[in-house]
């Protein structure tokens, strides 16, 4: 199957061994999109690595940016002001809804329900508009910086997000009406691609797919970063471990994200949007005209780059697809000595064999869909 099969969401080849129509063995063959991001990063300054992270999971660029920036901030010992943390959390949650919508659309289309794809794209467009008005780019925002965000949110941002959330809460009921009790959908997804709690943990499954196997673990709650500790939200967990459970968990997660967005908008404080720590963050452009120190810092940052202390950090966040981690080893220079990306999709894809063994060939399509993989992130 593949590498150009429409249901593999990119270039994934799966070598299937079949007994009639029953799957005996499934070996994913990956690497078609390998660009050597980890190698490239070793020759780039910390800020130059940032745009590369957008291109890992290109459906949820904001989450990758956040994971990388948090790792760099941890390495530098820098903390962003409250307002910046709120803005970053808002973008991260919008990104989560956006990623889940595209997943739901394509997953449903794989199984044969085309309508959901158009509905999902429609709402995703609204989020892309919000991200475009804030960052200037739709898919690859590169909006976060060590110490904050690149610019303050534009006028009318809060109203736009509020509008979207109000609309979305109604629309999500529409999706549920289409699928949740749909006879065909249930037949195609219930008791298909099952994975037990123990196997899921041993295989390193993370994110919504793990929570659909009954493991109550979400990094947003268990190791809170940014402002998640101030928010009131629930972690949907289901014990079944089949494709339907993974669908239900993601659907409920979207409701929780929308609930978080409301709280974030209410709590958004005034204040600076970036911590102007002179050694690590560019000074305001206006100050360059009348301050020699600002000019020096600006030059130093452009030419030398920011130089963190010697050491190593591993920092993870809950991305829409699971646990995304950045392991940075610094030798004190302006470039990362080693930058390792722990991509959720890469590790999650390993469980494909366990999930599809004994199922029908046609179910493999539903199972790959339910894993929510992005090849840009798997191959790096």
């Amino acid at each position, binding site marked *: 199957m593949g590498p150009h099969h429409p249901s593999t969401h990119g270039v994934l080849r799966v070598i299937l061994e079949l007994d009639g129509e029953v799957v005996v063995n499934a070996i994913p063959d*990956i*690497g078609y999109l*390998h660009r*050597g991001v*980890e*190698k*490239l990063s070793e*020759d780039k300054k910390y800020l130059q690595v940032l745009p590369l992270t957008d291109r890992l999971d290109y459906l949820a660029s904001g989450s990758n940016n956040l994971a990388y920036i948090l790792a760099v901030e*941890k*390495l530098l*010992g820098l903390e962003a002001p409250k307002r910046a943390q709120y803005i970053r959390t808002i973008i991260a949650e919008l990104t989560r809804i956006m990623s889940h919508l595209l997943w739901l659309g394509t997953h449903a289309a794989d199984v044969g329900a085309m309508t959901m794809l158009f509905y999902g794209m429609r709402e995703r467009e609204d989020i892309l508009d919000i991200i475009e008005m804030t960052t200037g780019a739709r898919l690859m925002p590169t909006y976060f910086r060590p110490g904050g965000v690149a610019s303050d949110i534009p006028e009318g941002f809060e109203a736009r997000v509020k509008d979207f959330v109000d609309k979305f809460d109604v629309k999500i009921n529409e999706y549920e009406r289409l699928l949740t009790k749909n006879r065909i959908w249930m037949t195609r997804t219930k008791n298909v691609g099952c994975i037990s709690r123990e*196997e899921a*943990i*041993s*295989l*390193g499954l993370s994110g919504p797919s793990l929570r659909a196997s009954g*493991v109550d*673990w979400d990094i947003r709650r*268990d*190791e809170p970063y940014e402002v998640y500790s101030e928010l009131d939200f629930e972690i949907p967990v289901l014990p079944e471990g089949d494709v339907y459970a993974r669908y239900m968990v993601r659907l409920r997660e979207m409701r929780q994200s929308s609930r978080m967005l409301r709280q974030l908008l209410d709590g958004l404080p005034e204040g600076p949007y970036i911590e102007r720590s002179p050694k690590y963050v560019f000074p305001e452009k206006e100050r360059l005209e009348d301050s020699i120190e600002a000019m020096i810092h600006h030059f130093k940052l452009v030419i030398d780059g920011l130089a963190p202390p010697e*050491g*190593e*950090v*591993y920092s*993870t966040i809950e991305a829409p697809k699971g*646990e995304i*981690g950045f*392991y940075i*080893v610094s030798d004190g220079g302006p470039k990362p*000595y*080693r930058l*390792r990306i*722990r991509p959720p999709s*890469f*590790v999650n894809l*390993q469980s494909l064999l366990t999930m599809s063994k004994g199922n029908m060939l046609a179910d493999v399509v539903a199972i790959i869909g339910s894993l929510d993989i992005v090849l840009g992130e798997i*191959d*790096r």
Partner: protein
Amino acid sequence: MTTSWNRQNYQNEDLEQHPAVKALRKDHDDAIVEIGSFRGEVTVVVTPDRCVDVLTLLRDDPDLAFDFLSDLTAVHWADRKDAPFDIVYHLYSIGNKMRFRIKTRVEEGFEVNTAYGVWKTADWLEREVYDMFGIRFAGHPDQRRILNPDGFEGHPLRKEFPLGGQVKW
């Protein structure tokens, strides 16, 4: 959850108070090379021949319960002559909500025992380390390249591997 587990101990400045370090001192004291911490992340360096024993203990000890292998990777220190490769294991305990890092230093050609028997996650992660660094794992069920094509020459994440080149794939 567990009884003797105490979050304070994990964040104690005295690393010997760390529950995982204590457990390792008790059973594998001679395997420990070095203990260090940076930004609150504790790292224990162990000898490569005992590495998998240490990992098994950390997973099976009911108080520690590091049941999740978050990441497995390697670092190439080109200037370190005796043992230029670090193999790095990032562990996570879902019950205790704690992370822990185990490292081991190996020389060129040394085969560390595979962690596949401890966590199945290690399968692809070790294949990637082999692909990128050329480090083999003894007992690995399927030691092939994973991201680069099968006929590829060299191991890209080694420091001597050039960044640019004319080879087309």
